């Protein structure tokens, strides 16, 4: 390649050739020169590289501009599919909330669910009781194995149908299993006497009435004066509009 300066006319001829701005005649003539002039071929290669370098500079600048605009539009809530997805997600969320709101259980059932927890059970001291069947069943009960507990208490309850402890805990199992009707009868039996389970039985009866939306019956239990459950009972009645 020549170290001599490249004259303006040759430079512009190379430029026009690289950019495809020559007529067919000019191109043919230029190509004839290329065949005969190695220095011109070298200058053509170099000119092509320089133009490519400038184009790459322009490309880099343009890409930066696009990226900045993308970032700006992204910070304003996204663009294109992203924005549509965001809209769709918002609509889906609103629809889900509306469905949940419409399909959610009534207030009384929600209050029952919020306040009902099964009685924690009685303490069982190892080797400290003569009634191993009851004690074993109580262990099952406290482990949450309610079916096995009830299965063991059932024959005991047949032998002693008025046993308040058996009645009460059998009712607990029935409540856990959703059999409020059977539980109510047993709890009513316990609450009528002088059992140590009386207060607790009344509380569960109160909750059963709440669940069934039997507000008058719940209020009739007059649980508001109960030292253990009075405050909660009054709050529930208040929430129910009583």
């Amino acid at each position, binding site marked *: 390649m020549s170290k001599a300066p490249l004259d303006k006319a040759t430079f512009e001829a190379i430029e026009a050739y*690289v950019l495809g701005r020559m007529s067919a005649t000019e191109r043919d003539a230029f190509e004839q020169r290329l065949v005969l002039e190695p220095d011109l071929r070298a200058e053509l290669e170099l000119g092509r590289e320089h133009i*490519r*370098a400038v*184009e*790459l500079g322009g490309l880099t600048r343009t*890409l930066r501009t696009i990226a900045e605009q993308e970032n700006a539009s992204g910070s304003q809530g996204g663009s294109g599919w992203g924005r549509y997805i965001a809209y769709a997600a918002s609509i889906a969320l609103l629809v889900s909330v509306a469905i949940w709101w419409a399909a959610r259980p009534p207030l009384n059932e929600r209050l029952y669910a919020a306040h009902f927890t099964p009685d924690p059970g009685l303490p069982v001291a190892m080797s400290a009781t003569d009634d191993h069947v009851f004690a074993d069943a109580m262990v099952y009960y406290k482990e949450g194995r309610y079916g096995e507990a009830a299965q063991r208490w059932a024959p005991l309850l047949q032998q002693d149908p008025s046993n308040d402890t058996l009645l009460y805990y059998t009712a607990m199992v029935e409540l856990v299993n959703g059999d409020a009707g059977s539980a109510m009868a047993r709890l009513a039996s316990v609450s009528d006497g002088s059992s140590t389970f009386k207060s607790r039985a009344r509380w569960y009866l109160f909750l059963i009435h709440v669940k069934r939306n039997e507000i008058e019956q719940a209020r009739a239990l007059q649980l508001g004066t109960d030292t253990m459950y009075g405050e909660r009972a009054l709050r529930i009645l208040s929430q129910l509009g009583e």
Partner: protein
Amino acid sequence: MCHFPVRDRSHCQSGSDVGLWRTFHPTGWRSLNFRRIIVFRTTKASTLPVGRALSDTTTGPAWVKGLLSNDPGMLRSLYAEHFPTVRAMVLQNSGSANDAQDIFQEAIAVLWLSVKEGRIIPEVDPGGYLYRVAKNKWLDTVRSAAHKHMKVVHDERTLERPSDVPDDIEERIVRLRGVYEKLDDKCRTVLDRFYFERKDLSTIAEELGVEEESIRTIKYRCMMKLRAFRNVIRGEEHEV
């Protein structure tokens, strides 16, 4: 330039916006510095075989034509369509949104130069190509010492460079940028508008409020400055 993948190089022919000179690589892509130049006569576009190099702005897919003409609309379109995938890949592999932008812009530059130099076949999927290049570049970054603490989630790739990405293309981009950096702002302003934006001299003169002849002279002088750095771009040790 007529650079074909090895499997297609037998199709190397002429006809382009960049002239009729074609460079044939007898040993494939690694022979850039040892290539020989062969002059081919023009052939009609209709006789070019399928799988030919891309360098004609009047044929080929729209994205190819857009890149050949430096169409900002096409660049924007490629960005909008393919950046989210690359962004997700980088974010899943311990990168940030800014990392994703940088990697994607580099991938676009590789795609652009590959198209400009006819080193990519028209049937290639631009999105897949960009993803492969971006993934490869990001994995290089992750493997680097500064990012050894990163956890790579998706690492099922082969470690080799994608077969359709010329292995010297990134080196060429670095060299081309090195040359561009030699230009001052005044040169960049004029040359960008003429060569990248493809505006004519009268338009540029009007935009800059000077005579057309002044723009012509500035352009010539600026390109001669680049000529002085010609050996930088060729990777030679000493400038001539």
